[in-house]
């Protein structure tokens, strides 16, 4: 019997691959306070889908293009702190989501599984999706590994990194494009509304146990993978939606890490 016949194999692979790269990227999101930025990318990506539906191009490609374009538009905005960036991100985030929903409803004769995009459908992941995710995961892993120290340096201080001769703007751009790529691909798995949960919750769970950035990244990836396994298992057993189940599992692990932390703290102070 062919290994690829197992229906759960593709969702499992997609989930694990995403969780593995969401560990390091999500850690940067947490360190650099970009959580809302990731949300905005996800919401805006719906506009990409609309565009893809209307022009009849590959939807995954439209999704990636949509969030990458949005990331490029948002990058100068993020640097200009004189404008209140959370307000602007909020406007962009919700207006693109709303415009996407309205346009989709107006597009006549086209049926799009909206719920699938809002909440994701991990179990509907196909081989081609996994291939996309695999390629993206390799790209993200290679680039992050290659520029790891420089990325940590600009996260600690852009100013010091610039004086040290790091190409700060290019590194920022790279990080944001990789984030856009991951967000676009993860949308299919956990949906627009939960993408940033996959990015943020595992690193948050890892934080209290880690002493170095590398430990945090490793623990975040591990937490993500365990969440995927638990979520899929729960989804299989109780027939719950797979994407949200993964997020619920991650949240449970986060709560568990808080308990561990308070136990450790009380032992230390005892």
């Amino acid at each position, binding site marked *: 019997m062919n290994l690829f016949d197992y229906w759960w194999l593709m969702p499992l692979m997609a989930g694990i691959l995403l969780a593995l790269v969401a560990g390091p990227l999500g850690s940067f999101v*947490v*360190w*650099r*306070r970009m959580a809302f930025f990731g949300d905005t990318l996800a919401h805006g990506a719906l506009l990409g889908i609309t565009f893809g539906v209307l022009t009849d191009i590959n939807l995954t490609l439209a999704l990636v293009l949509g969030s990458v374009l949005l990331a490029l538009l948002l990058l100068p905005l993020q640097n200009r702190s004189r404008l209140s960036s959370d307000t602007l991100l909020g406007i962009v985030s919700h207006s693109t989501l709303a415009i996407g929903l309205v346009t989709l409803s107006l597009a006549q004769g086209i049926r799009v599984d909206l719920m699938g995009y809002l909440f994701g459908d991990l179990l509907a992941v196909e081989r081609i999706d996994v291939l996309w995710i695999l390629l993206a995961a390799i790209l993200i892993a290679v680039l992050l590994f290659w520029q790891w*120290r420089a990325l*940590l*340096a600009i*996260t*600690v*201080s852009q*100013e*010091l990194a*610039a*004086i*040290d*001769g790091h190409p700060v703007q290019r590194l920022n751009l790279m990080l944001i494009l990789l984030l856009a790529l991951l967000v676009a691909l993860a949308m299919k798995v956990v949906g627009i509304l939960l993408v940033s949960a996959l990015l943020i919750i595992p*690193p*948050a769970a890892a*934080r209290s146990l*880690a*002493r*170095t*950035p590398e*430990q*945090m990244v490793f623990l975040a990836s591990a937490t993500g993978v365990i969440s995927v396994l638990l979520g899929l298992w729960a989804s299989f057993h109780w027939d719950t939606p797979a994407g949200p189940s993964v997020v619920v599992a991650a949240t449970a692990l986060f709560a568990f890490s808080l308990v561990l932390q308070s136990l450790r703290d009380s032992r230390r102070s005892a």
Partner: protein
Amino acid sequence: MNSSETTAVLSASHLQLVRQHKTVLNDISLNLKAGQIITLIGPNGCGKSTLIKVLLGLEKPDSGTVTRRTGLRIGYMPQRLSLDQRMPLTVTGFLQLARGASHERIGHWLDRLSIRALAQQSVHDLSGGEWQRVLLARALLIKPDLLVLDEPVQGVDVQGQLELYRLIPQLRDELGCAVLMVSHDLHLVMAATDEVICLNGHICCSGHPDTVSLDPAYIQLFGARQQQAPIAHYTHHHDHQHCADGHVEHRAPGKEIL
């Protein structure tokens, strides 16, 4: 210390910078030679931090030029650097991210600055004085030709301030580097500096610390202004005296930009 045969490691001429209709830097020129310690003083919002940024190449002036010696290695200790609590980082991990960091050099500076015991500690658990020393160590890792210290004693107790100011001329001698320092307090840096530049948008006065402290422009700026004055020994308190060149702009204390 001002040996004439040494060439300038960094020089600036006629720097001009306007931000939001406010002249932040007005016709500023200076020359920094190897082995020389220059201290910039001035009230909040006088453009000290902006001038440092321009000299470091982080910001472009509207006009004027900054010339750095080719291959100049700059060690920079920022005014403050707050790390996000969510990033777990040890002191050694932090230092390893600096350019020029190696195991031996990190060990050397940890010992030299007496912070070896902090090596494996989390950067989030350090006191103000300890963190300043770690930042100084970071600036020294590159073996700087030019050491730039922006308010190096902020958040450090008086004893620690005196120690740090004693350390700076020693480091200059060990590394043979030039030092550019920003300070609020002339009296503490007096012994540690060769030349003081008193800044308030433009250069009000400059020279040896003894001379500057008697300069009417200096007294005009600091006489009534000095807020942090636990050890102020002013002999002059001439209110409403005018600058030597007749005008002082930007009296409203603006916000520090850095």
